[in-house]
Structure formats: structure tokens, C-alpha cells
């Protein structure tokens, strides 16, 4: 793998070809804020909070560091006035959309965005798409997706009905930065829900200890994929 030399905020560093600016920055401890990035999932480039300014010849350009590949001789600045203005406005816009979401409030505090000049809504989802990517890339079932277009865009199951593809693994809830997707186990039932949809799962009961430990659908999915015998999951991991 070829290595390239680039300069981030005055620090020179080497990075492997194919890495993104964000990854290279992480390695040398330069912190760039993100909302739609997760190192276990493919980068999406939607929130634009990770924007940085790159300089080449005499020109500069604003790019999303989570998707921009490192290049030989690249000069990157992560906190110029132009970049700070961008971050502050994006935060202000998202604060209007999701005033009660902690991760946005935290960013607002960090960047000194005290108020938003825009009309308040009351969404919980910041449309980062992490849940959809987790479902696609980790669970591999694509139970939820981004539907509609533009300002009507939202995360949903097809027809907003309980999903038959969902296995109740909860990957979406784990990666959700705002709590817009919640997962709860109540007795023998697991509920996974977003703002407009809800799916319920029967949990499997361990034949030994009697505890409900995982959704039957999820276990069935894994069992089939890995070609395991029908009674493989009848006993929970603790009792095995």
C-alpha cells in the first residue's frame, strides 16, 4: 500500500493511500467533529460537519473529510474561519430541526451557538443514516431505509408497517446518536421503534434458566445463515 505525506493543521503525517482525511487526522489526534460517521460503517458524507478546507496550488476548497481520500502533498486545515462558519450554521440549522437532541446541544455548546434564528421543529432524527447503513452492512437485512425526498425525507420501514425483514438485532438502536431509534426488552417481547414505525419481536426463552435472551427472528436468521441445527439456540449462552 503506497503511503502519502500530507499536512493537517501544520502537522506533517504519513497515511496509507485509500485512507480519508478524517482517518488520517484521527491517527495524529486531530479532532474533527462528525455526526454521520461511524468507523464500523461506510462513510456517507451527509452531515457536512466534518468539512475541512484543503489547499492546493493557490486555491482552497471545502470538502467532507470523512470521504475525501488522502493525497500526496495535501494541505488540510480543520478550523479556519470559513470552516467554523460552516459548522456553526449547520449546527444552528440542526438545532432548529432537533432542539431537544443532546448530541446537537453538545455541539452547539462547543461551538458557541447559543440560539437558532430559525423556527423550531421537534424532530429527534438528524437523518445521519447510520441506522440504515448498520442494517444494511452489519445485519445485512435492509429492514429500514431512507424514504421520500428532500424535506420529507425520513427513516422508515416499508409502508411504515412492522418489518418482516427485521431480525430485532438492535444494531440501528446501538448506532443511533440521538435516541430516535429505541430498543426495549419487556418480558417476552422486544420492541424496536423509530418515530413512525414499530416492530415487535418474540424473545426466545432459554430452556435451562428460563430467561428471555434474544429475538427468535434474529436467532433464526443466524441459524439459517450459519447452517446450524434446529435446537442450537434453545439454551442461552450463559447456561451452555
Amino acid at each position, binding site marked *: 500500500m503506497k503511503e502519502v505525506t500530507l499536512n493537517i493543521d501544520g502537522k506533517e503525517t504519513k497515511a496509507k493511500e485509500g485512507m480519508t482525511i478524517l482517518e488520517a487526522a484521527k491517527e495524529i489526534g486531530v479532532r474533527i467533529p462528525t455526526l454521520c460517521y461511524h468507523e464500523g460503517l461506510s462513510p456517507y458524507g451527509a452531515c457536512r460537519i466534518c468539512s475541512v478546507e484543503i489547499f492546493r496550488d493557490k486555491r482552497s476548497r471545502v470538502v467532507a473529510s470523512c470521504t475525501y481520500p488522502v493525497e500526496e502533498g495535501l494541505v488540510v486545515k480543520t478550523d479556519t474561519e470559513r470552516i467554523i462558519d460552516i459548522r456553526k450554521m449547520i449546527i444552528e440549522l440542526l438545532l432548529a430541526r432537533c432542539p431537544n437532541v443532546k448530541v446537537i446541544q453538545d455541539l452547539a455548546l462547543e461551538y458557541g451557538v447559543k440560539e437558532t434564528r430559525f423556527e423550531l421543529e421537534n424532530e429527534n432524527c438528524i437523518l445521519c443514516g447510520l441506522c440504515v447503513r448498520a442494517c444494511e452492512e452489519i445485519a445485512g*437485512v*435492509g*429492514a*429500514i*431505509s*431512507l*424514504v*421520500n*425526498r428532500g424535506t420529507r425525507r425520513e427513516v422508515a*420501514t*416499508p*409502508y411504515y408497517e412492522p*418489518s*418482516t*425483514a427485521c431480525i430485532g438485532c438492535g444494531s440501528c438502536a446501538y448506532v443511533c446518536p440521538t435516541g430516535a431509534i429505541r430498543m426495549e426488552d419487556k418480558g417476552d417481547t422486544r420492541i424496536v421503534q423509530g418515530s413512525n414505525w414499530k416492530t415487535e419481536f418474540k424473545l426466545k426463552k432459554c430452556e435451562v434458566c428460563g430467561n428471555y435472551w434474544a429475538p427468535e427472528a434474529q436467532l433464526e436468521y443466524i441459524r439459517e445463515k450459519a447452517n446450524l441445527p434446529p435446537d442450537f439456540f434453545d439454551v442461552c449462552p450463559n447456561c451452555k
Partner: protein
Amino acid sequence: MPEGLAKEVKREEIEALLDKYKRQPSQLISILHDIQAKYNWLPKEALVQISEGMDIPLSRAYSVASFYKAFKITPRGRHLVRICLGTACHVRGGVRIMEKAEEVLGVDGGETTPDMKFTLERVNCLGCCALGPVMVVDGEYHGKIVPTKVEEILKNYD
């Protein structure tokens, strides 16, 4: 069966379409066009069947169907009224035509009349800019129309 609500989805018909496009997922949009041409909208059973046939998640078919304006995931009226609101038509008063149509039909743009007779749609340019404002009903183009003509034209459809 209420008028305007399409014919029943026949599994064989969907299978034939899947065969036509060799079940290739890249042909999703093409197959959705064909289904809508046949049934006047995209019934859920059709989407379920093509997802299975193409081996793609239903969520992908639903995302694509909901993203594009041309695709209707709720039943459509018998007659499709499209009013151009491209820039040239706008400058020539296209908004008034749209308002008149909304008034005559009693629905907003994007909606279908309760008797399933008309679906009214705003289009962001039909490419007949020299003839603006333009209204198309069931593929029949009416150029240089004025608000007073809207009702006259729509009266001809039953």
C-alpha cells in the same frame, strides 16, 4: 371495485415483467415504470413480488418508489392532469393555472379527487416552454392555456 382503483395484481403478470428484465436489480426503475403503466399505480403486492424476484430488500424498492415524483404509491385517478410549473411557464402565469385546476377539482397538487376521477400533479418542466403555460391531460398537451380554459378542458373527461 371503485373506479380508478386499478385491476387486481396478477402474479403471472409481475413474473412476466421480472423475466422481461431478467430479474436484474439495476432495472428496478424500469420495472416500476412498467408496473405503473399497467396498474395505474404501484400496488404493494407488486413491490413485494418484485423485491422477492430481484432478491433485493423491500425497503430498497419502497425507497426508490417514494423518492421519485412519477411513482405513485397510493392509487391514482383515472385521468392524470399535469400542470407545468417550469420557469418559462411560471413567468407566463403557470401558478394561476395550477390554482384554477386545484379550485375546479377541489384537490391540492399531488392529490386525487375522492371519486378517483382525476389526479392533479405539478411537473417541473415538460419541455414545451415556448407554449407556456402548459397542461397535459392523459398525455394530451394543451398549450398557451388561460385559467378560464381549464374547466372547459377538464369537462371533457369522464
